[in-house]
């Protein structure tokens, strides 16, 4: 039934349903607490074991600073390369994975294949992909880029094709009515509607990739995470703290820039939406 045509019915069902959900969630919570042994007293009792870590914040070892900055730049380039290389693949695949563009039986099969593959690849974390690529092409930033790339392609394909599926068919039909072929309909009817969301999603993905690039080094994917993890394994916290600070500054900065740019793209360069203060 259509959402608009549905007549809201006043009955006690929503109340009982909500109550059921609450009870279900509460029971799951208690069971989970028992199974995981989440004990807050552990945090208090074991606090001395982290003293070495916290004291490192008081006297960080700045000798790794310049090396850290270079690693940071490398990490940024990894994220950039993964996103930039994923973009063309995702654009092409997004049209193949859009239900409304793929009508014939053959096209439907392609649609199912593209979306299915994208879901499977997306369900496997970049870290796991990095393990596979480290086996494949050896340790270094390259497998890290490949891992981020394959996950980005799948994720962007899904986001992009969902966007293509929600386009307005009016402009498409108008252009088809002029006798234009499929390609021209795509260029003049579809692309103008999706270019800004695509840019926005790409920036969002860049942001995610920067975050992921900082940890992908743990499994040998290169970048700043690799060095950070080796310092932690050697219990060299004063150096690890400096690298962590650098990571925080970079991720924060990229997050800020990316969200500002996305805001600008989404509002078409207009002013910010009205805020209200109490």
């Amino acid at each position, binding site marked *: 039934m259509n959402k608009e045509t549905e007549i809201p019915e006043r009955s006690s069902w929503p109340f009982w349903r909500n109550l059921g959900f609450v009870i279900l969630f509460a029971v799951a919570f208690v069971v989970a607490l028992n199974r995981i042994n989440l004990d807050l007293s552990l945090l208090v009792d074991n606090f001395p074991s982290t003293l070495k870590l916290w004291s490192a914040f008081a006297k960080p070892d700045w000798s790794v600073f310049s090396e850290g900055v270079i690693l940071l730049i490398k990490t940024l380039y990894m994220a950039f390369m993964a996103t930039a290389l994923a973009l063309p693949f995702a654009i092409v695949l997004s049209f193949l994975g859009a239900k409304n563009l793929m009508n014939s039986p053959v096209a439907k099969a392609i649609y199912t294949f593209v979306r299915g593959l994208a879901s499977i690849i997306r369900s496997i974390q970049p870290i796991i992909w990095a393990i596979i690529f480290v*086996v*494949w092409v050896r340790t270094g930033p390259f497998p890290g880029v490949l891992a981020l790339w394959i996950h980005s392609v799948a994720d962007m394909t899904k986001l992009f094709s969902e966007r293509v599926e929600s386009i307005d068919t009016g402009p498409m039909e108008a252009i088809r009515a002029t006798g234009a072929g499929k390609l021209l309909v795509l260029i003049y009817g579809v692309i103008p509607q999706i270019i800004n969301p695509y840019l926005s999603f790409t920036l969002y993905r860049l942001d995610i990739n920067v975050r992921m690039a900082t940890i992908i080094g743990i499994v040998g994917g290169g970048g700043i995470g690799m060095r950070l993890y080796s310092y932690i394994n050697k219990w060299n916290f004063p150096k690890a703290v400096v690298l962590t600070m650098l990571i925080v500054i970079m991720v924060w900065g990229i997050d800020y820039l990316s969200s500002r740019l996305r805001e600008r793209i989404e509002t078409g360069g207009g002013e910010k939406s009205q805020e209200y203060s109490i």
Partner: protein
Amino acid sequence: MKKPKRFTFPDLSDRIKPLLLDWLIWGYLAYTVIFLLDSYWYTQYVDWYGSLTLPPWGWALTVLGTLGCAVASERFGISVGLKTIKGEERSPQKTWALTNWGITTLVLVIFTFWVGWLTTDMEIGIITRRASKTSHLWYGLSHPDFTHLINIDPELNDTILGSLVDTLFMAYLATVIGGFLAAPLGFLGARNIMGGSPFRKTIFYITRAFFNVVRSVESLLWAIVFAIWVGWGPAAGTFALLIHSMAALAKLFSEQVESIKKGPIEAVQASGASFWQIVRYGAVPQVIPQYTAFLLYRLDINVRMATVIALVGGGGIGRFFFYYKSQLDWNQVGAVTIVIATVVWLLDYISGKAREKIV
């Protein structure tokens, strides 16, 4: 009531910001050019000069030179900074790629790509050359061995399904507790609620900075901290996911609070309600549906993360994945990967459907 205008430097700020942006762009371009020169010069093995190292005055020259370029580009009207900061309209006749913006973006992207290719050691040939090394991997992954799905693995003292339940519970606990703690913090980090007095503003800035710092450290890194703190196991993973979720949700939540609508609040205000009553009856009902959607989204992210958090001692199904991987037992790795992919996919699907229904 009109606010008294704050004293600003309108002219100075309008001139300096575009200049800084231009300088940044030119400076970055100079950096990439020096990097490329350095890289290629060194690989060419010119015998009379090993590698290009900038003399000390070279850096000063680069800094001043790029500043000069920035000033010149503003002088000749090709400045990107002026266009960005002042927001000048572009003439509609020109195609986008031929505007200053377009040219600058293209040049920067090309140079960044070039430098990125070199810094990340890209070598496409190695993929085909070493493809044979991965044949056992693909064979194992496509012939999964599900023996330990319900039978206890003596090495890990658990079954795959049992650790899967652990993983889901970890994500669930982290989301629920994190979400519960994030709600009050979200109000403290909302500009419109904390904008009144300087004291409230200080709290706002501290809360926001706290979110951002905690959020910037990935939950995998938090897991290392908590593995040291409470020992290896699912509890450490849960704490790590919890603290990261709390910060991320609090940020999303405070943005949601900032975008609440005026009407209901004024209505409550008009009835003579106190500050807390305004929050309770004017603001909270407006953010609940969106917040539930955030929670579902976060649960989805947490399940994904919980599958790999065992890498640093966080417990869950990843324990099996990384153990079998270290044993090079690819058939078992295949089984674990299939279980992970199925569960993550299912959760993603359910959470997506539920979010659609709520929002």
